[in-house]
């Protein structure tokens, strides 16, 4: 049984099949870049596994793994230039990594502190309200167009997000204003416990686009090359003034929704196993080895390096000092009111008492 309800006539765009065999036209990408993106997929997976491990030890907060969705998350961000914007949900940590947000900043955020992404990465903080960020992406694109800048915005949500009003309003505004924006749906089959078929009776989410006058693409989200190819084309199309696009990436959430979720309550193990066979990293590895861009040895070395990089970043993040107890007053407004100032002093007073053992 599979919960993905795909019209048999509707085939997701593929360049690599599930065995890692080239079945389409190779996109214009250097071998070096390809290896970098392959490495980013590993970074995304290692990051997920590390935060889950830290959470189990009580050293990290609730976290949503992206295991199984690495090709989608890496591929959707890979074609973006520095001036391009990214507005994502919490499922796209690997996209932020590709865009240049430091690992240690991201790990620090899962210690329970608000991170400051470097402004030059042009990434909005991960969005918690479902679908909401799609409108921000469209607004960013509209602004770039008004300002006459060659910047593109990418908004990403999940299959659940497509049911929200904001998702549909975002498509509509993108179309009406011909905003340089690419709206991406990571269809991973599940919105916590609710299967994809509960979100829409339509055979694909990509089918939503034409109703808004937005060109749409249905893509195998576990195929890095296909994701990269379609994103490169839609992003550059948007940049050249030809308007928005909708891209549905068909993938699967291998892990739980978050560390607070137990998926054995609502889905079959067989379904998960079937999707594990379509693993995006394995698929890419086979292709790279086939092409002599990677060997078993260099792959093992790469995986070891990635683990090391994550470990170093984790040490860094864990050794960063916690912010001052009153830090949450820092960024409420640019000009705190006298009342906020007084409240802030109260926080410090009690925090100091606690520290002195008087609290």
């Amino acid at each position, binding site marked *: 049984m599979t919960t993905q309800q795909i019209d048999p006539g509707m085939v997701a765009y593929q360049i690599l099949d599930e065995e890692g065999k080239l079945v389409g036209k190779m996109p214009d990408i250097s071998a070096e870049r390809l290896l970098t993106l392959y490495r980013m997929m590993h970074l995304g997976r290692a990051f997920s596994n590390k935060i889950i491990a830290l959470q189990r030890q009580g050293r990290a907060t609730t976290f949503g793994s992206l295991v199984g969705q690495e090709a989608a998350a890496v591929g959707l961000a890979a074609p973006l230039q520095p001036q391009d*914007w990214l*507005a994502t949900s919490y499922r796209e940590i690997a996209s932020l990594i590709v865009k240049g947000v430091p690992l240690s900043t991201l790990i620090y955020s899962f210690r329970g502190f*608000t*991170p*400051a*992404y*470097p*402004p030059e990465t042009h990434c*909005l*903080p991960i969005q918690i*309200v479902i679908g*909401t960020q*799609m*409108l*921000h*992406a*469209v*607004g*960013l*694109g*509209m*602004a*770039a167009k*008004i*300002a006459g800048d060659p910047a593109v*915005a990418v908004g990403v949500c999940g299959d659940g997000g497509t049911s929200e*009003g*904001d998702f549909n*309003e*975002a498509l*509509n*505004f993108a179309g*009406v204003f011909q905003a340089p924006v690419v709206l991406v749906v990571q269809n991973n089959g599940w919105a916590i416990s609710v299967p994809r078929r509960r979100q829409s009776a339509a055979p694909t989410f990509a089918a939503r686009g034409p109703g808004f006058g937005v060109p749409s693409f249905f893509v195998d989200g576990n195929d890095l090359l296909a994701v990269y190819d379609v994103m490169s084309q839609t992003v550059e199309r948007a940049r050249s003034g030809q308007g928005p696009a909708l891209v549905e990436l068909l993938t699967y959430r291998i892990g739980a929704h978050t560390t607070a979720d137990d998926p054995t309550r609502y889905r079959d193990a067989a379904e998960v196993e079937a999707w594990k066979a379509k693993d995006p990293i394995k698929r890419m590895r086979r292709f790279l080895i086939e092409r002599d861009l990677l060997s078993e040895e260099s792959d093992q070395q790469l995986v070891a390096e990635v683990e090391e990089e994550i470990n170093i970043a984790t040490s860094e993040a864990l050794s960063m000092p916690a912010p001052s107890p009153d830090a*949450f007053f*820092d*960024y*409420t*407004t*640019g*000009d705190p*009111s*006298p*009342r*906020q100032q007084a409240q802030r002093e109260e926080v410090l007073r009690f925090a100091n008492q606690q520290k002195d053992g008087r609290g």
Partner: protein
Amino acid sequence: MQMTMIEALNQALALELERDPRVVLLGEDIGPNGGVFRVTERLQEKFGERRVFDTPLAESAIIGTSIGMAVYGLRPIAEIQFGGFLFVCMNQLASQAARIRFRSAGVYTCPLVVRAPYGGGVRTPELHSDSMEGLFLQAPGFKIVMPSNPYDAKGLLASAVADPDPVLFLEHIKLYRSFRQETPEDHYMIPLGKANVVQEGSDASVFAYGAMVQTALEAAKSAQKEMGTSVEVIDLRTVWPLDEDAIAASVEKTGRAIVVHEAPRAGGVGAEVTAVINERCLYSLLKPVERVTGYDTPYPAPGQEDYYVPSPARVLAALKRVMEP
């Protein structure tokens, strides 16, 4: 020049568009139609469709895309056609616009002005008259401005546009054309967060904003005539953050306080002003603080709204109560 509030706001928007190329106006019917109240009249003609544009009919998207534009570096001024429709975009306002600075650790700001007409007494359909400000006291990150006259409206709007954070700018429908006032044609600013003593007095303080300032002034006049009471009328101008110093200074002088607003009583600005008085100057009070407000019901249908909106008579009755020996 003598101007209505509509003319003052229109001129303020024109000046902002002229002064700052980052300013853009968006909303429903604000283009060729000039807004349902004509606040944006001829602005599209003057400044072009790139900077003054109609959107599809979707309030959440108007605010959501404005957030994106503000983060990008523009200075959007979004019009929500009626205050009651702010409910539709509550998520984008409260969980997004108000919080992007906070959520991004100060990396991004949201210099966005959301204009919306509100207020009773003009026989509008349902959800066109509701006063919404109370809801936003619980959405830290916003400033809330509610002008009471053309001169203030123009100067406060200029400050709202210059503010680095989101500002909710609520315009009372009844004030739009009810009177003219001498208003400079040049650009000027009135600081946010500062109240204005409209009429000095020594016996009782009445705190009001929006159309209720006129109501308070009428009641004050009657109180002077009937009882010889000297009433101080304070226009809060900005209802969030409150000008706590102005509130305390007045109550310390008069020892009696009345807060007047059209919004429901529970958890509103009146409750906050009362709490400020408790915290700052309880022992100056000679009588308990009175609240003359809308009631804790939805805003009623036009045929009954005159019973809901605070009238000069209700404010006068409160003044009589606080002046009892």
